[in-house]
């Protein structure tokens, strides 16, 4: 079992390290062909406009939609959450438009407003240290979406079947429990097809 980390731009090595700590082999994905070798995909934090543009440019929009259609799990953090969303506030077009959520970019403000805090997440026992960097927020969710955590009543972690998103960066700490949670989703997928 292997998990790919989309390596167009952003915090790729951190995700590889975290998912490997969760006991799963990981590989950077730069070309769409490389998606064939992985059973789960992480879309990392970075600049969503940059990642979105490069995804369009290199055919990742269609390729990841097919990947998702097959039921293969996808985990998006920060920019990854933005590109997975069906609707981005203030923008006419979304990127992958896979997850039934509406997001607001840079919802907490500029870098000086970026912060870290302890966060309770459904399905994880003790609070997780969450690092929010120019983070987006989920402003509304469809009825298929389960909210896994909120910060000051705003949605910051959510799941819709095989799709998992967080508006913060679990890859920036040594705590890999959210990656463990995602690894379990990939294992469940693997179990369902074999």
């Amino acid at each position, binding site marked *: 079992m292997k998990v790919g980390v989309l390596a167009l731009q952003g915090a790729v090595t951190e995700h590889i390290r975290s998912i490997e700590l969760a006991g799963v082999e990981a590989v950077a994905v730069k070309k769409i062909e490389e998606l064939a070798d992985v059973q789960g995909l992480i879309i990392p934090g970075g600049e969503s406009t940059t990642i979105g543009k490069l995804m369009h*440019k290199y055919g990742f929009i269609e390729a990841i939609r097919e990947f998702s259609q097959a039921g293969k799990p996808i985990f998006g953090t920060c920019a990854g959450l933005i590109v997975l969303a069906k609707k981005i506030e203030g923008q006419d077009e979304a990127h992958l438009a896979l997850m039934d959520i509406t997001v607001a970019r840079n919802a907490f403000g*500029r*870098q000086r407003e970026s912060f870290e805090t302890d966060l309770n997440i459904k399905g994880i026992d003790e609070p997780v240290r969450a690092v929010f960097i120019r983070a987006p927020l989920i402003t509304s969710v469809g009825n298929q979406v389960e909210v896994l955590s909120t910060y000051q009543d705003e949605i910051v972690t959510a799941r819709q079947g095989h799709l998992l998103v967080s508006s913060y960066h679990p890859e920036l700490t040594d705590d890999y429990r959210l990656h463990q949670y995602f690894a379990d989703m990939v294992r469940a997928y693997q179990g369902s097809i074999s």
Partner: protein
Amino acid sequence: METGTSRVKRGMAEMQKGGVIMDVMNAEQAKIAEAAGATAVMALERVPSDIRAAGGVARMADPTIVEEVMKVVSIPVMAKSRIGHFVEAKVLESLGVDYLDESEVLTPADEVFHIDKWDFTVPFVCGAKDLGEALRRIGEGASMIRTKGEPGTGNIVEAVRHMRHINGQIRKVQNMSKDELYAEAKNLGVAHDLLLEVQKLGKLPVVNFAAGGVATPADAALMMHLGADGVFVGSGIFKSEYPEKFARAIVEATTHFRDYKLIAEVSKNLGAPMKGIEISSLKPSERMQDRGW
């Protein structure tokens, strides 16, 4: 809830990795940079090559330019203060700039003291020619390092020298015994605990970008091969014939720095790049990399 922690500041730089940060002088250029896929823009009154041409004292940009750029783009906006000029830095922070560059491109305001960067909520990037300089800046609170290179020359040779030098020094440190490391900390003029961290990590404890002379897509890819986490492009883009196309080409070459066919493709018909300056023709006083310590 805590703001301005090391994790939040260094993490912001991590999110820039694999990206291109572009110098812009107005709102229109900022929009072009964002549309081309820049991960951030550096708002300036003049790009380094113009600063060279103009001479005189180069200072922080007019806040109007910085605000104008912040208004039109959703990507992070960086701005430069003079070395040691903590008031310029505080002014820029008060405007809401996302990242500060204590930069040798501007005329230093203090020849002895760099800014105490721990005193800021907003993170700093600083230039370095060698490991000692990089760790001194990190010791002062920098959350990101970039090679100094030789800004505004369109000549990559100095950035290559600095990147290779820093990485060579790191490899040397990795092989040092405990007692050698104490002596090396003294030689480099850095805190021992920071050097110990470098030895453990095998890299700097913060993101390290290439800057100072990147003028073509192949230059950007070269720096990525040499271990840069990303690139700053200063004068290169808006001094080229077709800035829009040129900016996109640099972004793609940075992402796919090992794909030579792709770099060939994006390098076609880019028009004339900036003319560039041979380093040996610079007078010692014109070498920006020698500013700061």
